């Protein structure tokens, strides 16, 4: 996110990094990393597990009405893979 200033880090809920703290219209990035597992591990984080998928970060972030802008940043150390996705707006 070049040029964006981090205003706050939160740990009890997504998104982890916030650029804009306007109540009811937050802007930020949700991040997650894995040491292994590659794209499959990242897909599990993004989409959740099981059928129907449960606990996926994408669905949880899209369900939030208090987020005006949110990105999802996922990475894996081995193999070195990363995903950056803009979910809102």
């Amino acid at each position, binding site marked *: 996110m070049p040029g964006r200033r981090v*205003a706050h880090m939160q740990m009890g809920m997504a998104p982890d990094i916030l650029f804009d703290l*306007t109540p009811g219209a937050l802007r930020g990035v949700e991040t997650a990393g894995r040491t292994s597992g590659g794209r499959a591990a990242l897909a599990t984080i993004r989409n959740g597990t099981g059928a129907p998928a449960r606990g996926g970060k994408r669905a949880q972030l899209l369900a939030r009405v208090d987020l005006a802008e949110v990105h999802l940043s996922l990475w894996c150390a081995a193999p070195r893979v990363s995903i950056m996705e803009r979910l809102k707006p």
Partner: protein
Amino acid sequence: MNPVVHDVYELSLASSGKLKLRAKALLAEGTPDAVFRACVLLHEAARGQRRAIYALPTCPPVTLLSSRVEECWCFVEGRDPLRAAATWGEIMQAWEGVEDATAGAILSRLAPQFRAVQQEFARLATPRLIASWNAGPGVSLSRTEDAKARKDLDAMLARFPGLANFWAMRCHLAERDGDKPGAWDALGRARQLDPGDTTLAALALGLAPWALPPAEAEQHLAGVWGTIEGAAPDICLMYALAEVVLARGARPDERALRWGHARVAAGAGQARANSLRLRRYLTAVQFLLDDLFAGREPTMEILYRAGLGEAAAMEKPDANVVDFLTAHARRVSPGAEFGEAA
């Protein structure tokens, strides 16, 4: 949002965020000392989170819910299941007015962690420990029961060092054992976790003349004297009694100065005392000081005159009234707090 309000809100959140990051690093170190320091930082982060919300003239329901969730997370990570549970109750209240899908997503990270911590706390909160907790600081259990309760308490504090009230309980048990450094250290930890708790500050004033060398006790009292006019009434009471205790071994001129400080403190506390019991104790201290200034030996009679006849009747007539007041006054607020929390 008003730009000034936004600045205050953002600054409070930013400082809370920095504390959480530092706490994370300390938790990763993993030593008992580092974990305790992390707990202190996370408790401060939780207070910062709450201060941020107070800066908002109007707070959307979803922002309130998010803030409470973050606060609760700080207590969960800060190893304080009791405060986490209290905040969880506020989350339940804040839930109303927020769409279920949004609320569910906001709580998705915290809820499983909270439940796991509560289960572990329930496992460690043995009936013996709860009984000792309910008995409060003024009640002496048998030596065997005390030893068992201490063992359970140590296990609890090893896993949950963020429990301020349990550190206060550890202080009382150490005091019963005559362990001065242990009592002072435990109370110091409780106060670090909750520096705004006037009950703990009052307890420290009651403990200082006993637990600390005279010079350090004087220093502790000197630190409180400057703020006594605006202090909470229980702090005023304990300060006055601590000055009377320290005056016992002092030179005559210093003794009069200490009694004078005690009188000012008792007067300041009397003006703000919000409970009959506390007012009676402060009145007793004022009668005690009247006797001391007049060169009379204070007797238990002052307790009857102050309305503390029931407590006085339970004590031997020739008991030392200063010791009696110090021992009993320390139970005024903490006893109530222990009862409520349990």
